């Protein structure tokens, strides 16, 4: 059965800290893995990863995929209160837009 496990489930840090969020998956016909940030409503797209070992970066956020070990990590450096959100990872099946979302990691950044 396809599954996605995110850890930790929740995390509380102080501004300026660095955090690492984990996503492990077992998905048949895997094509890509996506990370989203969800604050109140719409999940906002962060990264799409298709190749192992290639780090994607956007400002203070970065992510990498390991297709052999079936996991991905999302790093956030110098955290800010605006980073407080639920971070969702979603492996996608080849040939479709069927994503399997994890339950997410709830990050709270304290000032």
């Amino acid at each position: 059965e396809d599954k996605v496990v995110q850890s930790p489930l929740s995390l509380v840090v102080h501004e300026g800290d660095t955090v690492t969020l984990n996503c492990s998956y077992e998905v048949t016909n895997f094509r890509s893995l996506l990370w989203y940030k969800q604050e109140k409503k719409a999940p906002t797209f962060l990264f799409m990863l298709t190749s192992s070992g290639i780090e994607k970066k956007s400002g203070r956020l970065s992510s990498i995929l390991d297709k052999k070990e079936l996991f991905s990590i999302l790093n956030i450096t110098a955290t800010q209160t605006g980073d407080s959100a639920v971070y969702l990872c979603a492996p996608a099946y080849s040939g479709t837009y069927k994503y399997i979302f994890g339950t997410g990691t709830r990050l709270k950044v304290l000032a």
Partner: protein
Amino acid sequence: DAGVTQSPTHLIKTRGQHVTLRCSPISGHKSVSWYQQVLGQGPQFIFQYYEKEERGRGNFPDRFSARQFPNYSSELNVNALLLGDSALYLCASSLGGQGNQPQHFGDGTRLSIL
């Protein structure tokens, strides 16, 4: 440019009723997917439509149905509503239908069943 728009934003129904949720994708996007998100969980895939054809279906009962129109907008219909259908219903759109571009989500419709 407008993002994905969904209507209504909130809806209250009673058990047994029927509901229709609407979604307009980003201009130029031809694929629309629907997800159900209950509190504390990630979104669960319901349907994907591309070029007006159903391309994927999740593990939801036949009470759930959808369609895509020639202008690529979409409707999600749910019949015989149950209390467990209370959730945030998210629509997402993307350029193509093969999963090689990211999906972009709307703000969702919050459905409450009394």
